[in-house]
């Protein structure tokens, strides 16, 4: 973004001294409050748990004091939490977090593309703003409440079971809640707008004459779609994938409310270490690993955008 003109009003002449001083100091004065708050209460705590992740749990849930630093570092004991986090005991949780995030992302993409296409290209112009607003509204409303709504629908005395029983289709209520299926539904439901919106933004910019050209040159619809539309909307697709995958893999509310003991995700594991198990160093190590995964994904995304010569959509 252009920040070319840094000096203003040098023409006035009345307060030249003041004017000359502002451009240098002004940005620092303006940015200081933000740096103070984010530095003290965001970056510092993150650095703090990073440091703690190399420590050991003390008797009362605090940190164990280290007697001999040299020995501690040399013995590799400081990596104990990271070693523990890689024990087979936790593999199922990581694996579940990963595949659920992947499937959520895939489902969101498949569900979102046609609707984004519909809003951007097919829908009558006068409906577009409304259709888009209808996607945006759930995007901003309480994630917690939208997740809770599924408890009402899926639970044993919930809507689906009640309707099916009354219709005489089933004799005993189905187990729809507190399993991986429910978590999956909740994840897709919660993340869907994050996929539709970037796809829409991409499709909206699509030059329709290119589709026409493809068609004129003899390509049929599927071939035009796969060879023109999809490549041209790739920025939206990738942005949507990033926007859905990242929150899904760090999810904690959905799996806590809709999942059972067997659908624990990484987020729940971290929460557990702080709220229940009181093993902060271990919890910090996993939290840091999760952060590292997220940052790596974003770096990959930034690298991809740069390679493609496109401005990142995020």
């Amino acid at each position, binding site marked *: 973004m252009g920040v070319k003109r840094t000096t203003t009003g040098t023409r006035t002449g009345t307060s030249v001294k003041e004017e000359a001083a502002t451009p240098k100091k002004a940005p620092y004065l303006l940015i200081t409050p933000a740096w103070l708050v984010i530095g003290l209460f965001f970056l510092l705590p993150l650095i703090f748990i990073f440091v703690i992740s190399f420590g050991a749990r003390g008797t009362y849930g605090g940190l164990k004091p280290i007697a001999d630093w040299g020995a501690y570092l040399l013995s590799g004991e400081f990596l104990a939490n990271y070693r523990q986090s890689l024990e087979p005991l936790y593999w199922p949780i990581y694996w579940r977090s990963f595949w659920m995030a992947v499937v959520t992302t895939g489902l969101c993409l498949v569900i979102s593309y046609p609707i984004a296409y519909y809003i951007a290209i097919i829908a009558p112009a006068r409906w577009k703003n409304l259709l*888009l607003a209808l996607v945006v509204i759930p995007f901003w409303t309480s994630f917690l409440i939208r997740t809770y709504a599924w408890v009402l629908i899926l639970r044993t005395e919930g809507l689906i079971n009640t309707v099916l029983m009354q219709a005489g289709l089933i004799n005993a209520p189905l187990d729809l809640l507190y399993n991986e299926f429910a978590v999956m539904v909740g994840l897709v439901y919660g993340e869907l707008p994050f996929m539709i919106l970037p796809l829409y933004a991409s499709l909206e910019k699509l030059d329709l004459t290119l589709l026409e050209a493809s068609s004129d040159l003899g390509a049929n619809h599927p071939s035009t779609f796969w060879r023109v539309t999809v490549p041209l909307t790739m920025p939206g697709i990738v942005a949507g994938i990033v926007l859905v995958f990242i929150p899904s893999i760090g999810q904690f509310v959905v799996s806590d409310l809709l999942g059972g003991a067997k659908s624990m995700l990484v987020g729940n594991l971290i929460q557990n270490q702080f709220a229940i198990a009181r093993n902060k160093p271990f919890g910090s190590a996993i939290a840091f690993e999760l952060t590292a995964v997220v940052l790596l994904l974003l770096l990959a995304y930034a690298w991809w955008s740069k390679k493609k010569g496109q401005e990142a959509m995020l």
Partner: protein
Amino acid sequence: MPDSLETSPQFVGAREPAARGATPFRWERKLMGLHSALVYFFLYAPIVILIVFSFNEARQTARWEGFTFQWYGKLMENKLILRSVQNSLIVAGATTLASTIIGTLAALALGRYAFRGKGATQAALFLPIIIPEIVFGVALVTFFGAVQFQLSIWTVIISHVAFSISYVAIVVRARLAGFDRSLEEAAMDLGAGPIQTFFRVTLPLILPGVIAGALLVFTISIDDYVVSSFVAGAGATTLPIQIYSMIKVGVTPEVNAVSTLLLLVTVVMILFAQRLQQQSGDGGNKR
């Protein structure tokens, strides 16, 4: 995020279907229309069901046993809920005020000046949006514990401000991108000082962006559960924390009623913010 994803009115209506061969067949359009209708149903049905249930006489079942307002009445008698609503309003109000001011200042710095550390500042502002909330929550509670900062309503406010500044900065900065600097120069030429120019010219022009940012932060703060659940002290229970603990105990019609009210508040705020963004033209599209 939000600003790049909003409607772009200038495009709407500008697109005529291209030649016949390029546009989807009729059945393809129909199918996509049907699919879209189903997706909208999927998005809204749970919300509608929740709202309908909040007026349902039945306490335990999903059967409709008649219309009632009694659950809303019960809310008004529930001291825990009222207290949590009060806490949430204090937190969201204070967060909005603080982060709007700090975020707007940051946006001004980023939007108009080239300065040392600009890249680092942008990265630092980007972090709160991408770091998983759970990580931020556990980091803060550990940090507060280590520096012996007693958990209270203040710790909730501080945490919310810390992750809200970024949202304001992004929204306001987007608004600044379409800003005509010559208006400020004119004010200065006419003898206005920097402070007068800011309040009389700059602020009114970026105000829609500032208000949109403030509304956005208010909804994020009033909805936040994950971070608050870690940093709220005793007696600082916010509405989402209260709702969460009620859900954990079991489904009750009161939860449906209070959720419906919270939905209503956020939807009103969003519609307001959307209107402002649309009024402020395409300011939000340039990122």
